[in-house]
């Protein structure tokens, strides 16, 4: 990853980048919520910001939406400086927070109409836009009901609709599907994909690897206020570990013998899972794959299936956020490491 550093001066952002963050620091007393974060979101793409709870994801979104002033660093959104041009910046962005930011007492329609008016749409246009978005988010039937009677998914959709009233160029989605059931989560994903297809740039924070895999073009992993990895989804996967080979024998009884042969051939990473009836081999490189196939082939083992898998994003995530063990801490005795 080549990184062109831009001096925190009047140089402004590079074109093509909807969001540019350089060295953002934010302290809350002793805690460093953000400790020098750099990231870039290219126009029209989705950047997934991954991290565990308390990693600084929400603080980052709050800095980028002018709710929190950073202690150091620069950030540009849509070409506007978060510190010096907050008013223009607010016109560029839409924010959907972790907690639905709609007025519970107002109806869905009134919520959207209010935002439209606050964004200077004429009354007629605000009305039309509210109706249009209610339709699009399948909320037309519930339009007149107070938002507090909505289900969690409906509220989240209303919240998304509210952040889209002003057709923002950049959307922040702060854990948009946390706490949603799978069906509603899919609805939200569909909507996000649609927004991107229409040209929006999205910065998405999430704890769910699946979500990032589904939606994001690029990934930035943060932990304790720092970027610990960034790149494309597949890039990150290869960075963390090679592929895993799964061999399902035709006769489960042959499993131990298969493993023994592989060990003899120097593939010590071959492990047998008797329960699943599968032989797994961690592959360091492609040659090892050829060796496995060769060894199993010469000995004429019956093979039902054979496939290789990249590590899941969950595994990637665990691998890079794994905290170094504190020396003094007692290690759980029974833990077996594969």
């Amino acid at each position: 990853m080549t990184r062109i550093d831009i001096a925190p001066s009047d140089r402004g952002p590079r074109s093509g980048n909807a969001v540019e963050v350089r060295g953002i620091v934010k302290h809350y007393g002793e805690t460093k919520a953000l400790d020098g974060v750099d990231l870039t979101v290219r126009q029209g793409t989705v950047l997934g910001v991954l991290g565990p709870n308390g990693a600084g994801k929400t603080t980052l979104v709050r800095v980028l939406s002018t709710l929190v002033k950073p202690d150091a660093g620069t950030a540009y959104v849509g070409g506007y400086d978060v510190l010096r041009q907050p008013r223009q910046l607010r016109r560029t962005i839409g924010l959907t927070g972790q907690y639905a930011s709609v007025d519970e007492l107002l109806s869905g329609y009134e919520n959207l109409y209010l935002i439209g008016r606050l964004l200077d749409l004429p009354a007629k246009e605000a009305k039309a836009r509210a109706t249009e978005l209610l339709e699009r988010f399948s909320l037309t039937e519930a339009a007149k009901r107070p938002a507090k009677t909505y289900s969690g998914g409906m509220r989240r959709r209303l919240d998304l609709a509210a952040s889209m009233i002003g057709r923002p160029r950049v959307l922040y989605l702060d854990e948009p599907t946390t706490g949603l059931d799978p069906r509603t989560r899919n609805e939200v994903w569909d909507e996000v994909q649609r927004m991107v297809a229409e040209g929006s740039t999205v910065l998405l924070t999430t704890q769910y690897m699946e979500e990032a895999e589904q939606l994001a073009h690029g990934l930035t992993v943060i932990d304790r206020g720092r970027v610990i990895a960034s790149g494309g989804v597949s890039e990150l996967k290869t960075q963390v570990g090679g592929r895993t080979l799964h061999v399902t024998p035709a006769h489960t009884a042959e499993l131990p013998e298969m493993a023994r042969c592989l060990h003899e051939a120097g593939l010590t990473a071959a492990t047998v899972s008797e329960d699943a009836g599968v032989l797994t081999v961690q592959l360091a490189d492609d040659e090892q794959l050829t060796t496995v196939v060769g060894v199993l082939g010469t000995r004429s083992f019956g093979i039902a299936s054979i496939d290789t898998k990249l590590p899941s994003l969950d595994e990637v995530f665990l691998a890079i956020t794994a905290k170094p063990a504190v020396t003094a801490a007692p290690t759980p005795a029974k833990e077996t490491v594969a």
Partner: protein
Amino acid sequence: MTTAIAYETSDPRIGPGAHLRHVGALTRRNLMRIKADPESILDAVLVPIILTVLFSYVFGGAVSGDQHTYIQYMIPGLLGTTGLNLAMAVGTGLNSDFQTGVMDRFRTLPIGRASVLLSKIAAETLRCLLSFTILIGFAMVLGLEIKTDPLQLLAAVGLSLLFGMSVVWISMLLGMSLRSAQAVQGVSMMVMMPLQFGSSIFAPTNSMPGWLQSFTHYNPLSALADACRALINGQGAVAHPVTVVLLWSVAITAVTAPLAVARFRRRA
């Protein structure tokens, strides 16, 4: 860097017309909230009635000899304190607004920093006027007489409203500075109780001990009660207490309004 220049010049300064529209839209929201939750206006409707009944029948005989005289004495003072009691509740409401995400949404919209707070003032003004109307109307049923003229009555109402709105700024500042709605309520009570009772609202001050009299003398609520009494009953000096109340209102607003607006943006 032509693009950079384009960004600079596209700075959409918010004009007075836009400000008015924003405050109007937010005031509409506040009123619709009342409509959706009518119980939230019970305090404005019932408190003046309860206080009138309670004070005139409990203290009336003891303080003034009979209820009728006491009503004439106490109601103008109660007018001032009604605005105050309603005002202190605004901070509690604002605090709970911040607990939900709604305030975050408002603060990320390209609207003026003061719009949300001004819309609270606007909605509160309407609530206060409703409450004043009920108080005066109910007290008149119990025998209150307007011994001056409607214009002076309006002046008394206006003065109470002005002072009440200056206190709304204090209340909003508290609401945004303290952590929980309960804390806001607690602090408000702590400040309001001595101010209200250590004044000439409920009883003439001449029977109070000297140290308390000096307190009540400088208590703006005494000035407010005296001013309303003069404007409704036509007794006592008008100019002095009215001036004192005006000065207090302007001073409180001048100090707390900018602080509240700054706090609104900076609250994390």
